[in-house]
């Protein structure tokens, strides 16, 4: 069935192009890698044995169980923190909002291995905070283990929830809120029964991203899980462990990750399928007037969450100004780290900004039309596209990187060695941000607007560009910001794909931290923070100024 406002030629073209792109740059590269999981050791016959073997191992069962439990817990907690925060930012007068919003996305700029390092310095067994707490009699053990992981995920990943949900709150027409109150429901009740359900597509989109990231992420559990088995870490070791893992097991673990995330996606699709969320908003709802006590609480909450999230951050910044003797941190201040850093870093810094910018741009170009098609059509092909477009998030960057190298190092299309393959890898990997964020906001836009435009003689594709995109702006920018920020901190695919000229700040940090250059790594992180916060704050300002006329 064709959906209104939508010509099959446009939807078809987008679907086919997107599937083609993903087939080329995602499925084809991954095929070779996951093929091993369904082949017997001779490589000639198909078998399910690898799956049975892996799943029969209690160790992997525990790894799977741990991953799912931690992922679920982190998703729930992150959502419970992120949604109220988004609401505060969207509807309350919080001082310093643009700055706060920019700061809120910063935790993502810090590569997870750096924040893990900082967190261990603070909250490890010998951590500064740990010891301070113990000194005043608080029985705090350390950050290692599941609770620590959940806490760290929550405090780094909440922007996944906040950005789309924030845009969603602004796209709710105030009249449904008024209708609720008019019928005698208190503000809280209206929020719970009307507003929250209406922004649900965005909340679910964010939650899905969080869940998938926690499943796929290995940088944090690499350090903080210590020796608790976690699926992503085990998969990583099997793929690129120094002692050469088992390709079949690696494939099985990788496919397991994809299956988990696909299931999560299907649950979300099922929930959204029967419902509609458009309220026909003509302008963003006004800021709420609330009592001084609530206002203080909201301000404390908003700034508190962000401040807490910035703790590893501040630690890194402080560390970067400490003097290091080799790998050993001293208590003296100094600029030595920066001097060392700038001896080599201008190139990587520029590369990071260029690559992240290009990836954000490419991601929008590819992801927004996909998000549109997924929301506005209900064809089988679109459902397939939905799943495929979400897969990159379930695939470790390393795996995708290796797949891309094997696929495009020689043969019909040679890409290795340049910047393009990096950008392609980033665009593919971060595609879910753009797809989710734009599809979430689109749920709230009345399709009859698009119909009106088409009816006035503007083709569906032009309607999309001229009307729908501006209406979706909040969501699109959210996705682009997430892409930009997370690409700036991307390591796992970069490490496989970069060439000397295109080294990035994250590579610099990783190499430094791997060995004995923690000081340089911190300095690099500090520089990265500073150069990312500026464009973020700027974008937020710009958007806010447009807020009066835009959804």
């Amino acid at each position, binding site marked *: 069935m064709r959906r209104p406002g939508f010509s099959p030629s446009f939807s078809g073209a987008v679907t086919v192009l997107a599937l083609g792109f993903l087939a080329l740059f995602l499925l084809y590269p991954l095929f070779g890698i996951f093929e091993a999981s369904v082949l017997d050791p001779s490589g000639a016959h198909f078998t399910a044995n690898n799956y049975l073997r892996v799943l029969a191992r209690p160790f992997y069962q525990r790894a799977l169980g741990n991953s799912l439990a931690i992922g679920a817990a982190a998703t729930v907690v992150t959502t419970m923190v992120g949604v109220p925060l988004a609401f505060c930012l969207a509807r309350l007068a919080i001082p310093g909002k643009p700055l706060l919003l920019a700061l809120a996305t910063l935790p993502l700029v810090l590569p997870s291995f750096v924040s893990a390092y900082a967190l261990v310095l603070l909250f490890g067994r010998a951590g500064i905070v740990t010891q301070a707490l113990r000194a005043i009699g608080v029985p705090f053990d350390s950050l290692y283990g599941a609770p620590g992981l959940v806490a760290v995920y929550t405090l780094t990943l909440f922007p996944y929830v906040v950005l789309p949900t924030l845009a969603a709150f602004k796209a709710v027409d105030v009249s449904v809120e008024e209708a609720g109150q008019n019928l005698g429901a208190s503000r809280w009740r209206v929020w719970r029964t009307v507003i929250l359900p209406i922004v649900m597509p965005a909340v679910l989109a964010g939650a899905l991203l969080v869940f998938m990231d926690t499943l796929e992420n290995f940088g944090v559990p690499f350090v903080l899980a210590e020796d608790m088995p976690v699926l992503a870490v085990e998969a990583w070791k099997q793929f690129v462990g120094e002692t050469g893992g088992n390709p079949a097991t690696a494939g099985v673990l990788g496919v397991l990750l994809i299956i988990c995330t696909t299931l999560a996606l299907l649950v979300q699709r099922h929930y959204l399928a029967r419902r509609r969320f458009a309220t026909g908003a003509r302008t963003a709802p006004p800021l709420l007037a609330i009592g001084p006590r609530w206002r203080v609480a909201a301000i404390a909450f908003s700034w508190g969450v962000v401040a807490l999230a910035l703790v590893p951050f501040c630690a890194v910044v402080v560390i970067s100004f400490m003097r290091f003797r080799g790998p050993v941190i001293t208590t003296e201040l100094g600029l030595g780290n920066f001097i060392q850093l700038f001896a080599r870093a201008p190139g990587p810094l520029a590369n990071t900004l260029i690559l992240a910018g290009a990836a954000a741009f490419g991601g929008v170009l590819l992801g927004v039309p996909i998000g549109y098609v997924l929301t506005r059509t209900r064809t089988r092909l679109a459902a397939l596209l939905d799943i495929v477009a979400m897969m990159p998030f379930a695939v470790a960057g390393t795996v995708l990187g290796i797949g891309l190298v094997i696929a495009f190092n020689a043969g019909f299309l040679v890409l290795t060695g340049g910047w393009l393959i990096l950008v392609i890898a980033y665009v593919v990997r971060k595609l879910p941000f753009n797809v989710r964020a734009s599809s979430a906001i689109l749920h709230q836009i009345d399709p009859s607007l698009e119909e009106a435009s088409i009816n006035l003689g503007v083709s569906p594709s032009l309607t999309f560009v001229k009307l729908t995109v501006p209406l979706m702006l909040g969501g699109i920018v959210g996705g682009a910001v997430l892409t930009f920020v997370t690409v700036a901190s991307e390591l796992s695919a970069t490490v496989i794909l*970069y060439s000397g000229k295109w080294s990035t700040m994250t590579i610099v940090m990783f190499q430094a931290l791997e060995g004995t250059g923690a000081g340089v790594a911190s300095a690099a992180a500090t520089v990265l923070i500073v150069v990312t916060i500026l464009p973020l704050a700027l974008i937020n300002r710009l958007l806010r100024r447009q807020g009066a006329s835009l959804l």
Partner: protein
Amino acid sequence: EARAADKSVVIYSANESVLDELVFTAFTKESGIAVQPVEGGSGVLVKRMSSEKERPQGDIIWGISRSLLQSNAALFAPYHSKNVDAIPVEYRDPGDLWIGNNLHLLVLLQNTKLVPEGQGPKSWDDLLDPKWKGKIAFTDPANSGSAYTNVTLLAQLWGNDDAAWEKVTKLFANMKVLNKSSLVFSGVGNGEYPLGISLEYAGYIWASNGAPIKTVYPSDGTVVAMEGVGIIKGGPNPESAKVFVDFINRKDTREMIFAKTFRRPARQDLDFTKLPGNMPALSTIKLATYDEESWTAKRPATMAKIQEIVEKTR
């Protein structure tokens, strides 16, 4: 055009950046050849190199273990370096496909703030003491060649029979198995873990920079884990690659590296008494017999066994 291209060299380096920085700067200064480093863990780099074998992107791979050098020898171009003769034959490929640079001794690191000087373990056997339960940091052999060497060394040392593996299992039950080697030495250095099983150079770097770390050579003998360099066959800058290999094995280069980063060289003609750190000469350290080749050959099966032990003891 070919000459202009030859003015640079792409080096896949698994070394940490401080070492890279030091060497590359000196190399470029001396030779005028620009280095384009590609840095990463050795597993990642080898994967990358072999993925690119149809059209290699790198010239040199540097800082990967003997077993990785051996198992990927087919990807290397032979080169008989000028300095190769100073290096004992056991540390280089007979066909000149690769040359060993650094020798890492497997040692115990002890944080003397957490475990006072005299009270630490002296031997591998001491680590079995239940009092160390949860206090020893180790790297997952799945992700570290030297950890694999270490486990198999102990198996061999303890008799290479079921009882020996029983002891290995007991040891694993005492240890924290971390995901990468840097977590071990920085963990011990920063006081996260009282004890760690790591490489010799790390102990010296941390100690020489003031960390409370003591490097313990196990009294029941240890083994040399070698890492080295190879020229990637078909790389874009073969001439520069040769220049680099010559440079990296020169005596003065090795001295410079040692002074800053405590990498024990494969060539045996350095006088440690004239260098910082007071590192004992290789000849003064008790080495255990270790059948490296056979352990490398048996690797898949042995890894599976180790993996089982790791899984069982988590």
